[in-house]
C-alpha cells in the first residue's frame, strides 16, 4: 500500500455533526442551570436580602432565560435548517 493512500482522509458526508454537538450542549446546559437554580431557590434568593446570594443567582437566572429562549426558539430551526441543507446536498450530488 502506498503512503498516499494511508494518509487520505475519509470523504466528509456533510452531516451537521458539529451543529448537533453545539445545540445538544446548549440544551444540556439549560437543564443543568435549571436544576442549579431550583436547588439554590430562585425566588427565595431574589426576595432574600442576602447580597452575595443574589449576586450569584441573578446572573445565573439571566443566563438561564437566555438559554431557554435559545432552546425553544432557535435550536429547532437551526437543527432543521442544517438537516435540510445536508439532505439538499445529498440529493444534488446523487447520493442516497
Amino acid at each position: 500500500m502506498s503512503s498516499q493512500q494511508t494518509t487520505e482522509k475519509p470523504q466528509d458526508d456533510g452531516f451537521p455533526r458539529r451543529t448537533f454537538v453545539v445545540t445538544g450542549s446548549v440544551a444540556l446546559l439549560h437543564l443543568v442551570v435549571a436544576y442549579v437554580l431550583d436547588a439554590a431557590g430562585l425566588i427565595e434568593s431574589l426576595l432574600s436580602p442576602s447580597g452575595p446570594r443574589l449576586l450569584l443567582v441573578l446572573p445565573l437566572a439571566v443566563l438561564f432565560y437566555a438559554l431557554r429562549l435559545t432552546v425553544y426558539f432557535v435550536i429547532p430551526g437551526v437543527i432543521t435548517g442544517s438537516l435540510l441543507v445536508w439532505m439538499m446536498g445529498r440529493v444534488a450530488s446523487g447520493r442516497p
Partner: protein
Amino acid sequence: MPSSTKQRSLRFILRLIAFLACAVVFPRFFSGHSAKSFFQDEPEAQRSLAHEVRAYVDSGVATSAFHTGSARFDGEWAFGTFLMAALGLGQVVLQQPELASTYIPSMEKCAEHLTSAETNAFGTAAWGDFGFDGLPAGRGHAYLGYSNLALSMLRLVHPTTRFAKIHDDLTEGLARRLSASPHALFETYPGEAYPADMSLVAASIALHDCATGTKPRAFWESWKKTFSQWIDPKSGLVFQAGDAQSGRPTAPPRASGSGLVAFAFTFIDKPIATRLYAGLRDARADVLGYGGIREYPDNVQGSGDIDSGPVVLGVSVSATGFTLASAKLQNDFDLFTILYRTADFWGVPMHRTNGKRYLSGGPLGNAILLAMTTATWKWESRCREVKAP
C-alpha cells in the same frame, strides 16, 4: 449568478424558512403540551403540583420567607400563599375525593396560619386591632375575605373542621359589613378600599352559605347591582380601587384586580362572571402562540405595581395567572392554552421526585398556579340543602 453563489443563497433561504417555521411550531408545542392535562382535570397533573404546594405549606411558609421591602406586602404574600394553597388543595379534593385525608390536614394548617396573629400582623398594624377580635362585630379588615374564602373551601370539603365556629363568626361579620356598605365596598385598610378584595369577601360568604346550607341573604341582589358600578363600561375591567364613602373610583380599571374579581364571581353570580371574563378576553395579547393579559385598557398608561407584578410590554403577570381560572371555568380552551404556555415558559416546570413545581413561582406563584389550574364548578354539587327555618 455563479452556481456556488446560487447554492449559498438557496442554503441561506432554506435555513431561514426552517428557522421561522420552527419558531412558530416547536415552542408552542414544548410549552403547551401540559395545558390539556390541566384543562381536562387529569388527576396526575393536579396531584404533581398539589404535592409540591402541600410540601411548601407543611414546611411552614412564614412571613419571614418574603422580603419585598415592605412589612405589609411581606404579610400579604404569606397570606396569599396560604389562601391559594387552601383553595387549590380543596379544589383537588373536590375532583379527587380519595385525596381528602391527604390534603385536608394541610388545608387546616393553612387555616391556622390565616387566622393567626402572626400572619395577620400586617392588618393589625394598619387598623390598630386584630381582625378576628370581637367577631361578628367589627369594621373594615376587608382582606379577611381572602382568609374566609379559604375557610369556606375547607368547610365545603370538611364540614366538621375545628375552624367551623370562627368561620361562621367571620362570615357573619363580613356579611354585616357588606350589607351596610352604601357603595358595595368597605375598607381593606383605613382609607383604602378595593373592589377585588370585596369580591373575595362576597365569594367567601356565598361559598360559606353553600357549605352550610344557609338560606340566600337578603342583600345579594342589591349588592350585586351596586357592585356593577365598579365595572368600567368601556373596557369591561374593574376599577382597581375606590372610595367606599363616595362610591368614586380612585384608580383606573386594571386586569390584575379584574382577574381576581372574575374568578370570585364564579362563586357568586355566573352571568356577571361571564361579563367580567369578556373584558379580560378583550385584553388578551398574544404572539407565536404565547399570550398574556394586558394590565391597562388602551386609553390608560401605567407601569404596574405589587398587585400586577411585572408588566412587560403591557402584559401583567398577575392578570395572566388569574385569568387561567376564568378561561378554564368559561370552557375557553384556546385562551387557557395560550396563557398556560406563557406560564409554562417563564414559570419553568421542574419535575421532582414526587411532584412538579414552577422554578420561578416560589411559594406564592406555585400556590396561585395550583388554585387557578384546578378551578372547578364541582363545588356546586357539594352545596348543602338550605335548612328549613
